[in-house]
């Protein structure tokens, strides 16, 4: 190697703090005494920083292209949507076979649920809690969960997108602590108040033949659809209802009263502007909603209004 190459190797080792003594002290002395050498060190330090910045910019591109933030989102979305699907199939089965024969309903539930990308363990909890709920419900009532803010932002995209992901990918995307928390809560299902029964008579009538339950405290973070919009900025809530579908959308107030209700025919109207049926502007807050499709399918969650 040329003497110059030797110097560069020396400088690189020095800058990387890889140069053992006494080499380090020697380099420092040379920097003091030899201005040309000092300038070389300075130049190399400068371009090494430059190269690191260039590397960081490449990393930045990678982050942008990788959409890592979205991935972790999708994982949670998938989780919450799968959870909702379980509830929906459970409810569907319960609705059709209902109080007549609970055993059959549970068997049905399990078979249905197996088609979903969900660990079997969860199926049991669902069946169990459904059983409990079934006992609690003497008639058909709308049950509204106490408002709980999920720490993770709500799913705002369509179902199919999340469903494309395989379940093991979802596992990966889930932070491990979250999983443990869930497991812990499974063992203590009775700690939190499970249901709030809406006593509004009108409500009961409207919800005839509709059981909406949000049991399962262990899913409290993930089992809700959540939407957010700001009517003050002219935003509307686009219903998760596609063209050609018929459904009824009901938004409930803090005490369980119906504040907005609309019938959707062929996918229209497709949005809500945040005005109640009486025409008043609703304040900031999360409102429970229930969408009942004429196929019997039910979607529910919270719609948050910002102003």
């Amino acid at each position, binding site marked *: 190697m040329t003497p110059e190459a030797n110097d560069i190797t020396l400088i690189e080792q020095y800058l990387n703090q890889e140069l053992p003594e006494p080499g380090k002290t020697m380099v420092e002395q040379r920097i003091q005494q030899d201005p040309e050498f000092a300038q070389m060190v300075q130049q190399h330090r400068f371009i090494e920083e430059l190269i*690191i910045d260039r590397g960081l910019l490449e*990393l930045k591109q*990678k982050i942008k292209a990788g959409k890592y*933030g979205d991935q972790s989102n999708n994982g949670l979305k998938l989780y919450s949507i799968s959870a909702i699907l379980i509830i929906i199939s459970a409810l569907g089965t319960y609705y059709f076979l209902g109080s007549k024969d609970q055993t059959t309903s549970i068997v049905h539930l399990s078979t249905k649920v197996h088609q979903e990308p969900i660990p079997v363990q969860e199926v049991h909890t669902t069946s169990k809690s459904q059983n409990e709920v079934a006992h609690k419900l003497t008639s058909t009532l709308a049950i509204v969960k106490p408002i709980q803010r999920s720490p993770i932002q709500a799913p705002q995209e369509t179902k199919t997108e999340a469903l494309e992901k395989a379940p093991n990918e979802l596992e990966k995307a889930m932070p491990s602590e979250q999983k443990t928390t869930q497991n812990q809560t499974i063992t203590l299902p009775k700690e939190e108040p499970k249901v709030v029964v809406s006593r509004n008579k009108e409500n009961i009538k409207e919800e005839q033949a509709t059981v909406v339950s949000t049991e399962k405290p262990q899913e409290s973070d993930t089992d809700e659809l959540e939407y957010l919009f700001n009517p003050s900025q002219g935003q509307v809530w686009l219903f998760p209802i596609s063209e050609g579908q018929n459904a009824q959308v009901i938004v409930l107030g803090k005490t369980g009263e119906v504040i907005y209700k609309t019938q959707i025919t062929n996918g229209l109207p497709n949005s809500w502007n945040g005005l109640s049926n009486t025409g008043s502007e609703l304040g900031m807050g999360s409102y429970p909603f229930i969408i009942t499709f004429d196929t019997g399918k039910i979607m529910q969650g919270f719609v948050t209004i910002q102003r």
Partner: protein
Amino acid sequence: MGYSDKEVLEKIGKGQDDEVLKYLYARVFPTVKQYIHSNSGDIEEAKDIFQDAILIFYRHVKTKRFDDTHPIAGFIYSVSRNLWINYYTRVKAKKTELTHEQEELEHDDNVLSELITQEREQQVLQVFAELGTRCKDLLINTVFHKLSMKEICDKMGFTTENSAKTQHYKCKQRLIDLVGNNKTFKNLLQ
């Protein structure tokens, strides 16, 4: 999936950035998102802040300034928080009042100096564009990823480690010359 801090640093050393990023986004991003969300930020802002915090973390690691006795998650979280407060006071504070918590937090302006400014980003991109892709890739592999000369031979198709090394010196010298001819950089070098 879960790595210890030591494993994360090792993976960064080996250039397994994809795994590191996936892990950090799964492990730390939710907390940062939650913090920013509860301090009047939205998801897009949270993503931007977190991305900058990751870059600052990487820079600390790459320049060997990262103190590995500190937990990585805590480091990234506190950098994110500082970035958010800075951003908030500069950009958003005019629109809304600061919450009590934000007023109490100390500002750490150092964190800003760790960011690559837009101006510097342009200059860096420009000078490496002049240097050419091959030299750029080689230098990023040697200096940023710290690959060994043998790995570089395999990755970039050099026949001998010596030729890779010679090319590395040549590229460095060309970069020094380019920087010397560039007015903005020249001033910084003085």
